[in-house]
């Protein structure tokens, strides 16, 4: 469906996109994940034709899109802040793309009704855009983008402005909806939860390059670099040197999985792999802040040596703040990453 061949965009001397190669297959949902400034929005704009690449090509269904203007690419794009037309009502917003494609009035009306039904706003045609809540605007923007049946639907921070519970519900709704419609989706977000819930495949970007691509599970289990790991929210990353089945770190020796590459590396310890015991055994730490996370508690630990550690504790066994504990590490929850230079 979509192929990017070493797409490059320069802003002055800085490259917003640095020779990015990316493929999105039919019916696939790909999520580009990255911090702000990583070039992920630029990626969408290049695909949409809103920004000409300084190098490389964009192909849709194998056809080179160079020189094809935005309005002839047949894509859908849902903007970060929706960009609904303030002077049109809900129905006219959804019908806009259909009108541009010369759909007859009757077909427009039917399709608009159908889409509003689909996004859970049946009969909202005559409502004013300004009177909609954030979630409703979101749905209208989605309906508008879907209406002309785009080859590829692109979403820019689709759920960025919504509150958490709504976001979690909508992610599920969207995924179900896209699966049902068979839509090919390229989404962009900085929220890993959103990306993992939505995507078939996740692409992590950093400074205009792809840092890692893979299924959510792959990326989650085996981050490709310290950057990806930290971006996914793992803070227990330290410089290490692997010798045999253990790595030497600022926290002392940490066991690593069998077959880990030897020598200098970065080491990730998932919070679940940080085990708390009596202060006599293992790395001696002082308990800092505790954060309730539903089925577990995230505990910040201040070791005698080395950077702060985060641990995941069952509700019952959480130590008091200020208590002293001994920390041991679980080899199955550690990941050896390429060394950070």
């Amino acid at each position, binding site marked *: 469906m979509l192929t990017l061949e070493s797409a490059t965009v320069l802003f002055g001397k800085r490259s917003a996109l640095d020779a990015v190669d990316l493929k999105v297959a039919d019916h696939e949902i790909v999520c580009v994940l990255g911090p702000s400034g990583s070039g992920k929005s630029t990626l969408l704009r290049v695909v*949409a034709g*809103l*920004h*000409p690449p*300084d190098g490389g090509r964009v192909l849709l269904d194998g056809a080179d899109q160079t020189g094809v*203007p*935005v*309005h*002839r*690419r*047949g*894509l*859908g*794009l849902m*903007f970060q802040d929706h*960009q609904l*037309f*303030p*002077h*049109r*009502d809900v129905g*006219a917003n959804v019908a*806009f*793309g259909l009108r*541009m*494609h010369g759909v007859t009035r009757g077909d427009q009306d039917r399709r608009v009704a159908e889409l509003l039904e689909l996004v859970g706003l049946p009969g909202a045609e*005559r409502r*004013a855009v*300004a009177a909609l809540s954030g979630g409703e605007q979101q749905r209208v923007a989605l309906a*508008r*983008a879907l209406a*002309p049946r785009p080859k590829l639907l692109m979403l820019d921070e689709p759920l960025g402005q919504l509150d958490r519970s709504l976001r979690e519900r909508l992610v599920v709704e969207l995924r179900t909806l896209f699966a049902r419609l068979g839509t090919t989706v390229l989404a962009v977000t900085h929220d890993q939860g959103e990306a993992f819930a939505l995507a078939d495949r996740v692409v992590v970007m950093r400074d205009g390059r792809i840092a890692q691509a893979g299924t959510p599970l792959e990326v989650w289990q085996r981050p490709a670099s310290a950057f990806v790991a930290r971006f996914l929210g793992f803070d227990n990353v330290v410089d290490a040197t692997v010798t045999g089945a253990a790595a030497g770190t600022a926290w002392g020796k940490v066991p690593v999985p069998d077959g880990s590459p030897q020598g200098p590396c970065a080491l990730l310890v998932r919070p679940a792999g940080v085990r708390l015991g009596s202060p006599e055994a293992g790395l001696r730490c002082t308990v800092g802040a505790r954060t309730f996370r539903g089925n577990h508690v995230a505990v910040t630990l201040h070791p005698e040596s080395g950077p702060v550690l985060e641990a995941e504790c069952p509700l019952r066994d959480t130590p008091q703040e200020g208590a002293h504990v001994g920390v041991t590490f679980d080899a199955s929850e550690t990941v050896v990453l390429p060394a950070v230079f």
Partner: protein
Amino acid sequence: MRLGLMAVPVAFFAVFFAHPVVAIVGRGLKADGAWQFGRIGEVLTRPDILDVLWFTTWQALASTALTLVIALPGAYVFARFDFPGKQVLRAVVTVPFVLPTVVVGTAFLALLGRGGFLDELAGLRLDTTVWAILLAHVFFNYAVVVRTVGGLWSQLDPRQEEAARVLGAGRFAAWRRVTLPALAPAVAAAGLMVFLFTFTSFGVVQILGGPAYSTLEVEIYRQTAQLLDLPTAAVLTLVQFAAVGAILAVHAWTVRRRETALKLVDPAQTSRRPRGTGQWTLLGGVLLTVLVLILLPLGVLVERSLDAPGGYGFGYYRALQSVEASGSTFLVAPLEAIGNSLQYALVATAIALLVGGLAAAALTLPQPRTDSAGGTPLAERLVRGFDALLMLPLGVSAVTVGFGFLITLDKPPLDLRTSWILVPLAQALVGVPFVVRTMLPVLRAVDGRLREAAAVLGASPLRAWREVDLPLVRRAVLVAAGFAFAVSLGEFGATVFIARPDNPTLPVAVARLLGRSGELNYGQAMALSTILMLVCAVSLLLLERIRPDRSGEF
């Protein structure tokens, strides 16, 4: 694309402005085939010319400052408050703008002169003082500020100011830090227009200032139309050009520095009834200003048109209806002048909207990024130069343009010297800057991503402009059309210099009537001025009524 849109306005300005003006200036500065640039120094060292330059500049600055101070509260009140009769009043304050200066002079003398309002109230006579000129300039230009600034103001989201208040800013501080910067381009545009109008002021200065005060424009008129001293006129025209060019450059610079994408909302949502003593006082103050400064002089005209011998009545109006009753000043009945005026003004408005609309569109169209680095800056510079060019007709004397027409439009296919179309063309020349100036700030404030959204949904750039920008700026278009129409309706300077068969416009008819002695002539002139006033007010009122509907399909 952009250059394509610019073709029509560029051609229009080249043929009907640049060429005539260059030709007449060239005629003045060229003797025996050689340029006589020495004339510039000669003219500019004459003490009387230096006096004119100095007076022209300072009275324009003072008038602009005074107009802004008096009219900005008005712009606020009209933008943010709902009160009965608001639409009518907004149309009425625009009326002075279209009245011929002869008529306005009369009305203003009644306010400031002997036995006038101020004289009877405080024994104060301001005629033949510079105050009369300044106040008359406020009278004329009040609407420019109210419409240009108020138009944008009514679309600014009041919640931004509210946010600043919550953050601890006082009412005035919030206004100064949040609203004023957002309004700055519009205030600058309005200030610029007022400055241009007052810098090139002609009739007001002549009538209210007496022969002791003379502006550059008056001097150019005298040198061209009376003395046919084209070299001196050419030098003065160049000076005026340079001054206007400098102002435009400063304006362009300030606007570019401050331009920001604004969040525009429906004006209906931002205005409400005033609350609290402060707001009522503000409203009262503005209404009082409008009453004294605008309604009172206009009222004098109406009063005089009804004050027939043997008591108040419509005698003068009846006299307008037929050639016989009007004496024989006209070959056609004065009432037909209304029809003539409306027709000319409609054509002029159509031309101004076409030319100005295309120009404004070209100036705000998103610049397509080309991969060649060399092309874009040049095109960009061209576009900016064009922006300034559009304003120049406001800074050039009507007599210069009119005389320029004579020596350039004399060959087929453009032998238009005796054609009626020349009148609306000349009027449109003055209307175009209004259209562009009114539309640009609003067009530029439209969020570019809305256009992108339209493009992704399949709209070509032009279509996106039509679907997104145009509906959002429809109000601005209407305001611009209203201005262009009103300006054309009251235009006198260019019209009077263009040879035309005997179908006088309203201002020309008024001038003819006033040029004759006799009570009936004077009375009819007042009646016709009153009609001009009403025609204008009604036209503007109709424009105010055509509000864009919410769903906005067209």
